[in-house]
């Protein structure tokens, strides 16, 4: 899987690179509009992470070029301008998703994985984690063919872990993913704990392995041995 990171903030581009590299993605960084334009014209990518505000040009223009060249690369817009107009115009121009800064790398990872899954495994709506099978279309989870009765939050949690498997996901990232900006504060950590406890119990009862580990009370990690 090939990714292009179009981001002129080197520190941020490096973080994204390191995080996504772990998930068997081949990442390239384009630190400018012109650099990105060159790469886009030469290669095809599974997903392009596109910052809108570049020093030497507008990311939306890149998106237009991409679409007028009939490229099918997936595009995730990253923007410091969290405005509905940007979001609407980006999605209208054919971007797959929009993520405002600042974001958690796990959120980015999940969005990228979702875009690639939608683009590539056309028709395949399933994610397999050993004996666990997630049906994204039906929003259902089965262990060895047996369906689990998960709540909405538990399902969202499992999918989030699946997209970030093998990496530590912080509680803050989980809280933001599940509740958005709605209820801030440390209160959320208690709810997360409850939901994860229930999810693990349900998976265990269905006979699945215990893949979700707590990491020093700071986050969680799903590892498939």
């Amino acid at each position, binding site marked *: 899987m090939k990714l292009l990171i179009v981001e002129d903030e080197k520190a941020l581009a490096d973080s994204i690179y390191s995080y996504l590299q772990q998930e068997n993605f081949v990442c390239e960084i384009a630190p400018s509009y012109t650099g990105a334009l060159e790469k886009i014209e030469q290669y095809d990518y599974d997903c392009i992470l596109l910052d809108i505000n570049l020093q030497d040009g507008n990311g939306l223009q890149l998106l237009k070029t991409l679409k007028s060249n009939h490229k099918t690369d997936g595009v995730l817009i990253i923007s410091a301008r969290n405005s509905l107009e940007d979001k609407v115009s980006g999605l209208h121009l054919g971007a797959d998703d929009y993520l*405002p800064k*600042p974001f958690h*790398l*796990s959120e980015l990872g999940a969005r990228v994985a979702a875009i690639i899954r939608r683009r590539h495994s056309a028709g395949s709506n399933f994610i397999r984690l050993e004996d666990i099978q997630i049906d994204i279309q039906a929003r259902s989870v089965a262990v060895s063919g047996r369906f689990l009765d998960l709540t909405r939050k538990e399902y969202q949690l499992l999918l989030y872990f699946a997209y970030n498997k093998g990496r530590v996901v*912080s509680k803050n990232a989980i809280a933001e993913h599940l*509740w958005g900006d*709605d*209820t801030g504060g440390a209160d959320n950590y208690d709810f997360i704990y409850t939901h994860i406890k229930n999810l693990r119990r349900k998976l265990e009862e269905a006979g699945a392995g215990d893949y979700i580990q707590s990491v020093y009370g700071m986050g969680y990690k799903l590892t498939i041995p």
Partner: protein
Amino acid sequence: MLGSIGYYFIVRSVLIHELDDALKVEEAEILSHVHSLDELPEPSSYRDQQISFAPAATPVRRQFINITRWEHHRHDETQPYRQLLFPVTVKGKVYTASVTKSEEETEDLLEWIMLVTAGMIIILLGILFMANRLLLRRIWQPFYQTLEGLRRFDLTKKESIAHTPTSIEEFRDLQTAVEQMTEKIRKDYEMLRDFTDNASHEMQTPLAIINSKLDLMIQDQELKEKHHRQLQAMYDAVGRLRTLNQSLLLLTKIENNQFAQAAPVDLEILIEKKLIQLEDPIRVKHLNITTDVQPCELQMNAYLTDILLNNLLGNAIRHNYDRGALDIVLRQEFLRISNTGAALPFDPATIFDRFTKGGHSEGTGLGLAIVKQICDNYGHVLTYSYEENQHVLRIQFTPPMTGTGRPSEFRQNAVLGLSHE
């Protein structure tokens, strides 16, 4: 006043001068009589003119004098007279001749002149006053328009002050000055707004970098538990900065009226949905929720309505006791959310101000400021009270004006609604 006194004296002196001329004519007649006949003329005494002669030791100095005499036949009133005294020499004897003329006529004349003049002036003033009122109203119309425009001037609205073209230079100057001033104020205001906007936006990227570095750091398996605790504190701090930043941006956007698109929103359904969304914190705090809701449809922006309910209910949950109560009453005219909780640690009058919060609150202190701003934008009235250990927040809705909600707004909103999915 001074003018009229002056006028009186001028007219009077003119009239006296006339009188003196008449006296001089008499004098000339007497002198020519004496000269040609060398004898005194008959003294005469008419009602308005008396001539008399009196022997004198020495020639009297020729002079005009004012005298007053008692008039017996006129109720003992004093009457003013003008008298000319001059020396006459007849057959070697010196006489003092006096010609006296009553000033009564002059006074009468003066009175009439003053009366007529005063009358004319009053009539003129009256006409002037009426003409002024009519004319002024027309001439000053541009001025009053500008004044009214200034009174209605609203910085947050893009409308400029309307002017009707006028040929009066002063008003044109005023209009230009007002225009330039409002333009400058607006520019300054926009600059300030843009500053908040830009500052907040510029902060997003560094925050994103910190956040991403933290996300990377926790992947490190060699970290000790004490590091994790520090990292967690950093995460929380960045999270708070992020929320703060977003709240500030949201406030500016609401102030800028960037959420103008309005559509009918059903508060009853939205409250129900919000309570489901907030079920986790409600469950953890074991809150007792009572709802007494009736259908209520408002013309509002969907996103802002969501924020409004979120902040109000979020507050009512966060600042509640364990096993406390949260009551929601919704009517067509108002929404009332009350919750148990300790009295405010600050002045209740400042509750809607920015950055007002209890010392240990994790919130940004902007939640209710945002609610207030949203209510202000729609003309809803937000009030707070503390009754029987309950915090009560009440929104009195303003009925929407008829004719709002153009079709284009609905369409735009539909697009935005889709993008939220």
